[in-house]
């Protein structure tokens, strides 16, 4: 494989919608290793920030600079949406889809997808329609579909927000496995427990602005900003 996609340098990045600033300006460096967790209350801009990093929401100003050129960068990242978007097809077709988009032949794609499904305990669902899976299974499928193209980085927007404890644990352990095999993970959550369990690094977001960037241990032990302290204490912050 060629040079890694990361680090990513985010400089003065801003996102506007209908003339209003939703996010930024944000300065951040995303390193190749570890799990980066974006935390913040509802409406703080987590979704917007992930979409901006992935290139789904355009920048009003500022820049994103990947370690490789932009076309390469587009191809080597994946996104898992908060409520999984299932193609109205079988589980197998959902898995082969990203491969087919990249020109892989359908037979080879099927072989790869079937092998891949095993790692996610999805084999028994392969011939079923994706829409008939449970929420947790759909999220797992969305994760598998995002990883099948072997991205350098994967963004996940509150992947467990609608899942029960068991499904959440399953997703979390899959994420840890994925990360140890070399894929950078950037994930948003408003669940502090999940942030503690997964994060190597934490970005605390409030009202569209980054209030704190820190190692997970440091952040949870001694948050620097007052807002973060309140958020950790479970206070409602405005």
């Amino acid at each position, binding site marked *: 494989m060629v040079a890694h996609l990361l680090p990513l340098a985010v400089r003065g990045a801003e996102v506007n919608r209908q003339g209003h600033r939703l996010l930024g300006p944000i300065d951040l460096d995303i390193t190749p290793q570890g799990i980066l967790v974006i935390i913040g209350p509802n409406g703080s801009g987590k979704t917007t920030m992930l979409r901006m990093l*992935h290139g*789904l929401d355009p920048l009003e100003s500022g820049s994103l600079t990947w370690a490789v050129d932009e076309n390469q960068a*587009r*191809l080597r990242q*994946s*996104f898992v*949406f908060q409520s999984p*978007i299932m*193609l*109205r*097809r*079988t589980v197998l077709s959902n898995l082969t*889809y*990203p491969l087919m*988009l990249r020109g892989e032949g359908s037979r080879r794609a099927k072989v790869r997808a079937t092998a891949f499904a095993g790692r996610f305990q999805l084999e028994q669902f392969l011939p079923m*329609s994706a*829409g008939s899976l449970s929420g947790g299974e759909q999220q797992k499928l969305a994760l598998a579909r995002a990883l099948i193209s072997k991205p350098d980085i994967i963004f996940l927007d509150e992947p467990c927000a609608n899942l029960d404890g068991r499904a959440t644990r399953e997703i979390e352990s899959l994420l840890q496995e994925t990360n140890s095999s070399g894929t950078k993970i950037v994930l948003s959550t408003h669940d502090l427990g999940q942030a503690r369990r997964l994060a190597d690094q934490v970005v605390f977001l409030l009202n569209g602005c980054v209030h704190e960037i820190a190692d997970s241990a440091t952040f949870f032990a001694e948050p620097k900003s007052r807002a973060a302290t309140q958020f950790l204490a479970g206070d409602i912050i405005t």
Partner: protein
Amino acid sequence: MNDLIGGFREAGFLLVSLDRDLLTITLRSLYVSLTAVVIASCIGIPIGAWLALTRLAGRRYVIAGVNGLMGLPPVVVGLLVYILFSRAGPLGVLGLLYTPTVMIIAQMIIATPLIISISHQGIREIWDDYRDLLLSLNATKWQRMGTLIRDGRYALLIASLAGFGRAIGEVGAIMIVGGNIDQATRVLTTAIALETSKGNFAFALGLGFILIILAVAVNMVIHGLVRTERTALW
């Protein structure tokens, strides 16, 4: 009431006896309307999909226009096509007036806006659902089109069937451009109009029932084909 009962009896009789004239008229109806709808679908579905996917400055107006054209009166379409293909008209040299071909052209014009509109709506709905995923996966414009047409095939089928319903039941246009010529351009709807004007109500009603059976049967056959596929795949 007697006419209605007579109509039922006549329809039953026509069906059982497999009247030769009736058979040719029915087959001609099917041939004209199915051909028109296949062509209209080949034109209308890509346009509908394209409209759903494209950021076009005046898209709202284009769609409003297309929706307006859904109500295009068949008689007026017939008149316009007649003028185009009449001997003195710009396409008169083709000598197509009073042939099934020109009837197909007229019905195609009537069905196309309906097919564009319904397929646009169906594709749009899936696009709203799929949009973020397809953009995230870097699908090219053609790949997006292909995906939406494939996954929206059920909605597209409904669009075509609606177009077929409008075409097979239409009388105004084909009467004008086809002329209701016996053994040449007579179809079920024009035959009904003729028999009614002659006062043969029972026979006209009989033809009417056959027209309804035909329309329903085509719908059911095609739905049935797709259903089996849907339950298997989705």
